[in-house]
């Protein structure tokens, strides 16, 4: 029988996964852009559009999974105050923060991906 992750695990996924994938998308996307736009860039054969679509899709999926985890924890701790004693109070607190935070991370990932796709990344504004 497959074990389902407990609330303790879900609270950390909800809180940390969105932030982590946003940082990863930003750093990897930046690295790919710098590599593509460097003097030797065309020789590397980096397809920046494919990189950005992949990063944005993976990032978006991970953030949505994190949001789902946070909502699950939030629902499972119903009746507990966010200021209550740990572990349930802490879980409620984390879930409340993560529900809002993950929406912001989703927006940041989409804007970053769309911005790179819409504009020429190798030309300064």
């Amino acid at each position, binding site marked *: 029988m497959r074990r389902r992750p407990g609330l303790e695990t879900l609270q950390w996924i909800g809180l940390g996964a969105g*932030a982590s994938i946003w*940082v990863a998308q930003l750093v990897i996307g930046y690295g790919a852009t710098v590599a593509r736009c460097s003097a030797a860039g065309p020789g590397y054969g980096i397809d920046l559009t494919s990189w950005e679509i992949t990063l944005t899709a993976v990032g978006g999926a991970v953030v949505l999974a994190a949001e789902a985890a946070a909502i699950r924890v939030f629902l499972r701790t119903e009746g507990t105050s*966010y*200021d*209550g*004693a*740990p*572990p349930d*109070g*802490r879980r409620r*607190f*984390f879930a409340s*923060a993560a529900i809002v935070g993950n929406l912001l991370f989703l927006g940041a990932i989409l804007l970053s991906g769309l911005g790179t796709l819409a504009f020429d990344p190798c030309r300064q504004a």
Partner: protein
Amino acid sequence: MRAAAVSAEPRARPNGWWGMAMLVATEATLFGAIFGSYFYLRFQARAWPPAGIEPPSVTVPLLLAVVLAASSVPMQAASAAARRGNAALARRALLAALAVQAGFFAMQTHLFEDDLARFTPQGSAYGSIYFTMLGAHQAHVALGLLLDLWLLAKLARGLTRYRVVAARAITLYWHFVNVLALLVVGAQLSARI
């Protein structure tokens, strides 16, 4: 609040502490972006700092950063004393930390003004990122001083569980600001390398 009551506090970290940890994480991201920008601009520039701007002095900023970092010791002592239920010791340790931190703030503000008289944020990319980095850190120190004053006012009326949590959270904030001071001065002084 009596010592016995405070020592009965659960060992798990309170939500107030976790809230401060989240704030610290977001502020660390902000400073990560500032440091990233600083070194990005530095490695794009032919001369850093640009011609006409003297490299920063080493001794005073380094000494100030080390002195500020040392204030983590009385802050931690204040937090530990509050957890043990010793309000008087917590107040004294907090006052000692506040004196050091306020001294740092005054000196750093003076140096900041001195730098502004020599070059401006709008004059070059160096000036822009230099003042952004130092100004952002200085703003965090100012917020920390306000938190200290608020906590001192609260502790003057004794300890409660809420105030113990506040002491722990503010101590965590100062540890972060102090580590940041060392990183900021490291980036600042890297211009001399």
